[in-house]
């Protein structure tokens, strides 16, 4: 069984209920467990870490302050000062995605963001927020998002069509980008891990050569750390850009 786990690169994405064998709507699965772990880890940094409110911060508080200032400057930079009303939302998103990606890199863990339904739910939440806030704030003027100014009337239908397609494809690209990055990275790591076990089992010569895929795993893990952070950042900054559209729909 253990050998099969190590080799099968898809096994890590299986969702298994922690009790019973049927997955219902409220079933607590390994995915649910890691969602709870992610939220607990974020809370450890952001709530427990800041509980002393020290003037000179300790390690956890520094981490909390750095996260705060990083996301705050991202939001302010891409969505303007008005975008700060969405700061808690973007911050929660960024931290959830980042911690899911990072915790998923630890062996034997489950990566919450490697499930398309999770990333799609986030993307739908973002686009839903954009539409609801845009309509609430600007009414029909929000539709100007699809009608750029200064375009000749002949071209207008095509431009509007392109704008609508680009708007509709946003949640898809946003969710698939994160999901595919996580999925591909974890599969690659697992495949190289499988090479190591296979080569070690196949003989002395290949056993010595198994150092090569092992080195590749080390490099890939470092690369995946970068990807984990980068994808969380990309998710957050694109959220800011889309929210900026809701705040200022006139381009």
């Amino acid at each position, binding site marked *: 069984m253990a050998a099969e786990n190590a080799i099968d690169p898809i096994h890590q994405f299986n969702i298994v209920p922690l009790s019973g064998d049927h997955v219902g709507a409220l079933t607590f699965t390994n995915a649910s467990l890691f*969602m*709870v772990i992610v939220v607990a880890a974020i*809370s450890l940094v*952001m*709530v427990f870490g800041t509980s002393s409110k020290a003037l000179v911060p300790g390690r956890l508080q520094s981490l909390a302050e750095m996260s*705060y200032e990083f996301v705050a400057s991202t939001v302010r930079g891409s969505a303007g000062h008005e975008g700060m009303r969405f700061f808690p939302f973007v911050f929660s998103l960024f931290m959830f995605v980042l911690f899911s990606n990072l915790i998923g890199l630890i062996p034997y863990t489950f990566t919450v963001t490697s499930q398309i339904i999770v990333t799609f739910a986030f993307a739908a939440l973002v686009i839903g927020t954009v539409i609801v806030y845009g309509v609430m704030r600007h009414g029909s003027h929000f539709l100007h998002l699809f009608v750029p100014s200064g375009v000749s009337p002949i071209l207008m239908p095509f431009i509007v069509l392109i704008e609508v397609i680009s708007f509709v494809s946003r949640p898809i690209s946003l969710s698939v980008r994160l999901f595919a990055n996580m999925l591909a990275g974890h599969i690659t790591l697992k495949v190289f891990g499988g090479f190591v076990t296979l080569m070690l089992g196949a003989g002395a010569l290949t056993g010595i050569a198994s150092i090569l895929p092992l080195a590749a795993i080390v490099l890939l893990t470092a690369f995946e750390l970068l990807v984990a952070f980068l994808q969380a950042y990309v998710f957050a900054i694109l959220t800011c850009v889309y929210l900026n559209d809701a705040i200022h729909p006139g381009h």
Partner: protein
Amino acid sequence: MAEALAQTTGTQVPAGAPHEGGAFPPFDATTFSSQLVWLAITFGALYYLMSKVALPRVAGILETRQAKISGDLDAATAMQAKAAEAGAAYDKTLADAKARAQATAQQMRDKLAGEADVKRKALEAELNAKLDAAEKQVSAMKAQAMTNVGAIATEAASAIVAQITGRTPDAAQISAAIAKNG
């Protein structure tokens, strides 16, 4: 064990192949409802914790620190101004004290010079007076001596006359003669 090995060698080569015994897990729709429910619960809790507790707290910490830093900087600037002021006051006090010391020394010098002058003048006057008195005494003594000389001359003249003539001459005549020649 043999079965497991056969299975692994089979699945290892086509790495991206669909997982046997069910759909590819991320696309398995039967798990979607559970994931969505738990995502809503956990993300909702996270959003609540962040927006109500953590973020206001961090904002407060950063604000407090900013206020403390700018307050400290202001205090430092004020202290510096105070120090400069104290330095200026010290310089002024020093200059004043120097001027006062010079004035006092000048005054003292003037006073001592004046006193010495007065003393010198008094001494001069006294000496002059003494000189005058001495002169007067000398002249008085001279006059007295002259009168004594007259008496001696009279006496000598009467003695001489008595020796020569053998008779006692009239004293009044001799005095008159001496006064006439003398």
